């Protein structure tokens, strides 16, 4: 077995409401939606109009800059509504699903017997290419490139994240087929990042893929952290990343010839009365899952985890890449002398508050900022939770002044928003770290192209 790589920096935020490893059932949602906001750096162009009929896998929109990339419908049915915002920007395309999903047939095949272009063509045709992302920029991969490597992180270390072994159980064949397909796409290797604390599940033992084992606190499960520890992304290089369940979906495409957009989604968080796992499709309406299962009023519903997820309404839609729904209290109450109170029930990595007395207590955190935004004052706190050989504050400052050369020099190609999410959490000055980094990535993308 390969050596275990220890990630030293980071922190696990211990929360209440971990999902029990049981699949619960909920009524099948009637509507599904794709949200262009899930895909930064892409100019969306609609392929359908309201009232059109689509099959699962039929394109709903495509990237204007790279027309080969289409976004397939996760279900069959009728385009119910195109929700637009300011300047007619598309916010959501909603599909009213058929009772029984009808699939477009893309033909099954053994990926090992296909050529690179055939594998790529099949994924593109099925509208599943957006499942493949790339570093730098953390955007949908450019299919015209051949990546140096492809990285699949086989565990998620984020708070309340779904358990990888549980999720992959029973889908071993799909996972292996997916990895085989990815192997055709690179001249380098497909790397699997495994949880070093447990013995890896049989599913992850794929010949020819390179296995790496990691231990340590979050963000040890982020592909960016893992590849930085093994082989960082240099200027001019491209590494693709694919999520664990997204590999399974790609595997299913080659086994069945269909875009079966099913995921195992963990419903978690302190506000959930019975946190469990659910089977859901990409873009599913979350109403039926949440109904009758949420404890209190004034909640925040998040598609994804508390670090990187998107806030959605209680009748909103699961975001494209998310395997998790978190429900947490919204908060929003003023706190009398909050800066002096001991704040036992809050999270902090600083011992200036007194929660260091109870390091293992599981918390029920709300969304309060716990302070006001300030200039950078305290130094050295990002470095405690940022396991990269990169100076995070200096990188953010270079983004704030839009200095492209400095951003490049300071290593912007190696990071994604999720890698810096903990910096944002621990920031005394409440700097919007992820938003700033995204802005920087977008500037680089505009200037240099993918």
């Amino acid at each position: 077995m390969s050596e275990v790589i220890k990630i030293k920096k980071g922190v696990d935020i211990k929360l209440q409401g971990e999902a029990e490893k049981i699949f619960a059932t909920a009524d099948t949602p009637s509507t599904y939606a794709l949200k262009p906001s899930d895909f930064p750096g892409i100019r969306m162009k609609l392929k359908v109009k309201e009232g059109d009929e689509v099959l699962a896998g039929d394109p709903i929109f495509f990237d204007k800059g790279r027309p080969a990339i289409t976004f397939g419908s996760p279900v069959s049915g009728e385009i119910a509504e195109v929700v637009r915002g300011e300047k007619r920007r598309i916010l959501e395309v909603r599909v009213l699903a058929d009772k029984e999903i009808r699939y477009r047939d893309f033909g099954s095949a053994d990926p090992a017997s296909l050529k690179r272009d055939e594998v790529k063509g099949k994924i593109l045709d099925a509208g599943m290419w957006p499942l493949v992302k790339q570093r730098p920029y953390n955007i949908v991969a450019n299919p015209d490139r051949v990546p140096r490597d492809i990285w699949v992180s086989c565990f998620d270390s984020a708070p309340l994240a779904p358990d990888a072994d549980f999720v992959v159980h029973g889908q071993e064949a799909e996972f292996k087929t997916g990895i085989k397909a990815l192997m055709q796409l690179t001249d380098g290797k497909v790397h699997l990042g495994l949880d070093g604390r447990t013995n890896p599940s049989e599913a992850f033992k794929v010949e020819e893929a390179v296995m790496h084992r990691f231990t340590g606190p979050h963000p040890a499960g982020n592909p960016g952290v893992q590849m930085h520890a093994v082989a960082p992304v240099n200027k001019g290089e491209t590494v693709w990343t694919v999520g664990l369940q997204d590999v399974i979906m790609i595997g299913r495409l080659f086994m069945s010839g269909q875009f079966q957009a099913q995921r195992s989604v963990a419903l978690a968080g302190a506000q959930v009365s019975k946190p469990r796992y659910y089977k859901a499709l990409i873009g599913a309406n979350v109403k039926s899952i949440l109904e009758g299962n949420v404890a209190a009023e004034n909640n925040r519903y998040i598609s994804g985890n508390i670090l990187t997820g998107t806030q959605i309404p209680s009748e909103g839609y699961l975001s494209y890449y998310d395997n998790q729904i978190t429900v947490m209290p919204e908060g929003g109450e003023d706190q009398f002398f909050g800066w002096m109170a001991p704040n036992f029930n809050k999270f902090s990595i600083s011992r200036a508050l007194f929660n260091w007395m109870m390091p293992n207590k599981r918390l029920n955190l709300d969304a309060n900022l716990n302070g006001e935004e300030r200039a950078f004052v305290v130094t050295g706190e990002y470095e405690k939770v940022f396991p990269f050989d990169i100076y995070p504050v200096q990188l953010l400052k270079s983004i704030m002044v839009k200095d492209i050369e400095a951003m490049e020099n300071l290593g912007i190609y190696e990071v994604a928003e999720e890698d810096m999410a903990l910096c944002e959490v621990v920031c005394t000055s409440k700097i919007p770290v992820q938003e700033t980094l995204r802005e920087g990535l977008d500037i680089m993308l505009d200037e240099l192209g993918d």
Partner: protein
Amino acid sequence: MKLFKNILDSVKPHFEEGGKFEKLHPVYDGFATFLFTPGHTSHSGAHVRDAIDLKRTMITVVMAMVPALLFGMWNAGNLHYTALGLAETMTFGDKFLWGAMRIVPMLIVSYGVGLGVEFIFCIIKKHSIQEGYLVSGMLIPLIMPIDIPLWMVAVSVIFAVVIGKEVFGGTGMNILNPALTARAFAFFAYPTYMSGDKVWINTSADAGQSVVDGFSGATVLGSYATGGDVQYSVWDMFMGFIPGSIGETSTVAILIGAAILLYTGIASWRIMLSGVIGALAMGYLFNAFAPHAISPEQQSFMSLPGWQHLIMGGFAFGIVFMATDPVSAAQTNRGKWIYGFLVGFFAIMIRVFNPAYPEGIMMAILFMNVMAPLIDHYVIQANINKRKKRLATVKAA
């Protein structure tokens, strides 16, 4: 609590746009957020945030200075009555009260004037009131001599806040430590009140009292610099029963503060540790070269055991509370090692070699404040070069 909330809510409309005191909104905001941490929730990025904020950070530093402040009050009274030969007859309470009567007004002037200037700038620049001055306001009286007139404190504070901080853009933007800027200003503007052997102990005598024969008000550093006799033992220096700036004398009280700062992680242990190492390095280097000193005074100072420098003068106070100011110190972890080491190193060098400025730590920190961005620049450049080298090896392969 409900009462405060109601008062705040009732006056709030006057400070909003279009209200009577619209321009004073930053002042209102300052008071409101002081009483209540606002319930703002996150709108982008991570949904949970650390419970720490800048107010908490600053108040922790202020708390860490309290032991030094309280000791300073007692010590000022003790030295005063010692000079008058009354140390035995006066009680602990008398001494403390005497010191408090002089130091509390300095605190009030420092905070009142400093925050006043901050408020004015916030109103002009329309940004919210920042917390940086909470610490500076406490530091400034602690690094002044007991006999300094209050108006000098006020002038120094105005200089420090305006020139030291606000012209750069406020908290987080300054290059020099504001409190040291105030001290440096007072030091050069009013040298007779800031140095020598008359200012550290108050010898004003009431009717029927007189200064005892043979009394000297010289500080330990002053005595060494002029080749005079040092009247205090190492134990006195460690405990702090010596003349000096109000907060700097007691190494014990400062160590309590250091423990708070290090345990909470608010101040950088790298800077403190490397500062002590730097001071010891210079001190023992002097010991090695002491026989070659050019004058007998210098020789006696150079042959002083290296470790004794740590408990003399303002070194301990400076390295714990002022060198660790995150804004004006080096910001990278590696840079902090270099910065701290050089602060300690230069502090002892200036102290020994330049009798005009026996208090070297002030100069050393201010000098290194200016150099800190340069240190960081080279540390970061090394990181950039590493990345470029990695790219070059990949390309070559």
